């Protein structure tokens, strides 16, 4: 979509003073896409990084590239910027020749200059670029120009980060600015009945402002700590109608074919067709489950909003400022031109967290107090209790084995939607997906998503095994009406699907009496995957023999079956108190041509750590009175006392296209941890998280 909608060089690269300004709709959410884009321009044009900058991502000026998600940025924005740079390169060389003669072989781009070999003729690249016609189309057929070696780019922003000078949205500070906090209902079914008038008056007397729209309630004022305190005391002054409370459903019991909209999945795409029958007599049969889990961003969501002269100016850490603008404009009855959203970084983002909701809520507060910049922040409790969660999920796998080979495999995925982003759509889908619209006086009903029928989308991402198996039966089961609002989190369904499939491969290898790497190789034809597993095997055989108390688990996956390939081994122990301790992760990845090796390694390592946290620690809990996992004690995550050595090796040919990698390692990590626990203890863990309690229960159940 990127080049199709933005076909001109000037859509992607312009001049800003003496620098090249690179335009993108993709945003840095901790994954360093801007580093990779700068690297692409630097390589293509042989220009020092001091002469290139990334433009602020703002509606109206940035290319609309939808949402920064799905590991698509390098393939969409990266490809567009690369082709725009290649076109600019050709333009610069042609311009130099037109001015000074010679032929193409004589002209070179060197360190920010266009030089004619054998002469002292040297033209500044930025001078030549200034005359670039704004209507020059990008030529996507031009060959890429990739130097043999270029200095590794330093991560943008890190010098500021270690000195506390990097500006996050939470740090914005404008003259006359007010701070604001929400007073959240006890849970999603509650509605605000009444506020005690004395508290109301007391707050007004202290210069605080209360904003109410139905059950949406917030407090604002000039001093942040006063606002924080007021939001708590105002909470005590509210009486709520509990609406029957949250349903105390066993969500896993809801995952049955009877409750589901069912679709067979062929080559990664759901079909409107009858679901084939289950395998009659499988040799292996097991169900794998993941509870609701949260993004749990380190910084609670925030936004800055100002309503001035009938225009709404927003700053947000949303992954998709254009879709968000449409949803907010529609919610407030504004024209698109009346709403401007600028991206400002928040903390690391792993999918659809509270950022979009917070931006809309800041807008509601700002419109009640024109001409006042409002810095609105969710509290830790707000983020834990109200962000859209990754849906709980179950995958039933059945397999038939014959002579050490899987001959038939059935995998049925069950979950609620992974698609809750405020994208526009029929029935005011955008507004219906913004949290506050459920609570305003003019409330919208919670959005019910239609089944996602895209290839490797939603819950069926990586449901298709990558292996050569004669007969497969894959089914998507969409179960709706479950207790919590859900949306996209890193990898979507791929985590549970890979957990299920790779646990099954491990179990099948075990019953065939074949080592797990050879077993997988025997089910593969793709030479790149086989080379990757060979490399993993070599790495492992170079390690000292595994200590007796240690277990090792192997897993492999290719994200969406077309993106980055990751094979890894996890070495771990299980303590006397049934705690899993991670020791070493040996990871081999093939992401095609690597643009920023350190950035890619960081993404793969980060994926391992987040997945280890999902596998070992994380679970959203609730009862009738609300979400009970409301902070980092009641929702534990992995900490520094359980960090393995991660040994990462990048394969990948410079001639292979670059593919997305941000979500490639989590799925195999969860599976390899489960397989290592099996290797270490004999226990086959089927439900995340694999806590000490869960291990003890599994041991008792035998």
């Amino acid at each position, binding site marked *: 979509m990127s080049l199709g909608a933005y076909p001109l060089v000037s859509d992607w690269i312009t001049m800003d003073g003496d620098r090249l300004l690179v335009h993108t709709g993709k945003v840095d*959410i*901790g*994954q360093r896409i801007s580093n990779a884009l700068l690297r692409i321009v630097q390589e293509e044009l042989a220009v020092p990084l001091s002469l290139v900058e990334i433009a602020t991502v703002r509606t109206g000026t940035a290319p609309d590239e939808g949402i920064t998600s799905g590991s698509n940025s390098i393939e969409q924005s990266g490809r567009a910027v690369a082709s725009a740079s290649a076109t600019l390169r050709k333009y610069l060389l042609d311009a130099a020749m037109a001015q000074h003669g010679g032929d193409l072989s004589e002209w070179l781009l060197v360190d920010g200059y266009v030089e004619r070999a054998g002469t002292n003729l040297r033209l500044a690249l930025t001078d030549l670029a200034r005359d670039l016609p704004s209507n020059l189309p990008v030529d996507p057929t031009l060959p890429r120009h990739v130097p043999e070696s270029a200095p590794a780019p*330093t*991560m943008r*922003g*890190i*010098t500021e*980060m*270690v*000195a*506390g*000078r*990097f500006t*996050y949205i*939470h*740090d914005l*500070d404008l003259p006359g600015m007010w701070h604001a906090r929400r007073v959240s209902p006890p849970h999603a079914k509650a509605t605000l009945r009444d506020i005690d008038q004395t508290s109301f008056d007391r*707050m007004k007397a*202290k*210069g*605080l402002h209360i904003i109410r729209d139905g059950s949406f309630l917030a407090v604002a004022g000039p*001093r*942040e*700590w*006063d606002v*924080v*305190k*007021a939001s708590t005391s105002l909470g005590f002054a509210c009486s709520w109608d509990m609406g029957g409370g949250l349903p105390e459903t066993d969500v896993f019991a809801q995952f049955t074919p009877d409750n589901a909209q069912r679709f067979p999945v062929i080559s990664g795409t759901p079909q409107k067709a009858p679901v084939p029958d289950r395998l009659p007599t499988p040799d292996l049969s097991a169900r794998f489950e993941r509870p609701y889990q949260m993004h*749990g*961003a*380190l*910084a*609670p969501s925030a936004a800055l909003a100002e309503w001035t002269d009938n225009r709404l100016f927003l700053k947000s850490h949303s992954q998709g400022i254009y879709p968000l603008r449409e949803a907010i404009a529609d919610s407030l009855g504004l024209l698109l031109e009346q709403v401007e959203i600028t991206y400002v970084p*928040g*903390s*690391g*983002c*792993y999918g659809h967290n509270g950022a979009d909701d917070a931006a809309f809520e800041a807008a509601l507060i700002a419109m009640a107090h024109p001409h006042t910049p409002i810095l609105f922040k969710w*509290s*830790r409790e707000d983020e834990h209790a109200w962000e859209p969660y990754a849906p709980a999920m179950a995958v039933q796998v059945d397999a038939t084995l014959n002579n050490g080979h899987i001959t038939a495999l059935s995998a049925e995925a069950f979950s609620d939607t992974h698609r809750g982003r405020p994208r526009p759509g029929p029935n005011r889908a955008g507004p219906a997906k913004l949290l506050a619209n459920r609570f305003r006086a003019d409330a919208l009903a919670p959005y019910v998503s239609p089944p996602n029928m895209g290839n490797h989308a939603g819950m069926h991402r990586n449901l298709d095994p990558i292996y050569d198996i004669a007969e497969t039966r894959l089914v998507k089961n969409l179960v709706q009406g479950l207790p919590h609002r859900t949306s996209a989190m890193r990898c979507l369904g791929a985590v549970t699907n890979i957990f299920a499939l790779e646990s099954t491969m491990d179990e099948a290898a075990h019953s065939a009496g074949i080592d797990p790497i050879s077993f997988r190789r025997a089910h593969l034809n793709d030479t790149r995957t086989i080379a990757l597993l060979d490399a993993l095997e070599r790495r492992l055989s170079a390690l000292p023999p595994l200590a007796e108390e240690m277990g090792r688990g192997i897993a492999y996956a290719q994200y969406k079956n077309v993106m980055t390939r990751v094979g890894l081994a996890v070495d771990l122990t299980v303590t006397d108190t049934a705690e899993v301790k991670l020791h070493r992760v040996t990871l081999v990845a093939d992401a095609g041509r690597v643009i920023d090796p350190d950035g890619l390694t*960081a993404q793969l*390592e*980060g*994926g*391992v*750590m*987040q997945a280890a946290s999902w596998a070992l620690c994380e679970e959203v809990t609730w009862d009738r009175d609300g979400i009970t996992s409301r*902070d*980092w*004690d009641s929702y534990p*995550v*992995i*900490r*520094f*006392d359980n*960090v*393995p*050595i*991660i040994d990462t090796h990048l394969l990948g040919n410079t001639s292979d296209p670059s593919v997305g990698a941000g979500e490639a390692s989590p799925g195999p990590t969860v599976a390899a941890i489960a397989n290592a626990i099996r290797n270490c203890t004999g226990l086959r863990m089927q439900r995340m998280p694999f806590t000490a309690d869960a291990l003890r229960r599994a041991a008792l159940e035998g």
Partner: protein
Amino acid sequence: MGACHAVNLRLKINGIQHDIRSDPDTPLIYVLRDELKLKGTKLGCGLEQCGACAVLVDGKAVLSCVTPVEVFDGQEITTIEGISETEVGKRVQQAFIAQTAAQCGYCTSGLVVAATALLSKSPKPDEATTKAALTPHLCRCGSHPRVLRAIKEAIAE
């Protein structure tokens, strides 16, 4: 609420004496960020559970998001903005840069403060001591292995 119970306090922050008038119950972080505009100290939870808000108080890493400012009256505080003034702090910062020990960076100032406190107290901690000192700190992007490598590098120098 408001300034009705405000008291006078004297805080030495990054080597500079500040006379502050504040409600005594205000957690230190709000004074640092909102009154003194030292935005490098990050609020992650307000519950002393995530470590993003760590500052050095008399050389020790202390969480600033709950404890009232009046407790710090007369004490010497170093925030991330002042950490490069210490020899150890500067070394830790350089090692974090060399190892690219951050992704989003929101946990970084707390981690740099914690690492500086650790290495100031014990210049050559073993791996278990390092991990224990960092365990109050969360990182959600998964830069943990890099942070441990950075601290190793800062020790080796």
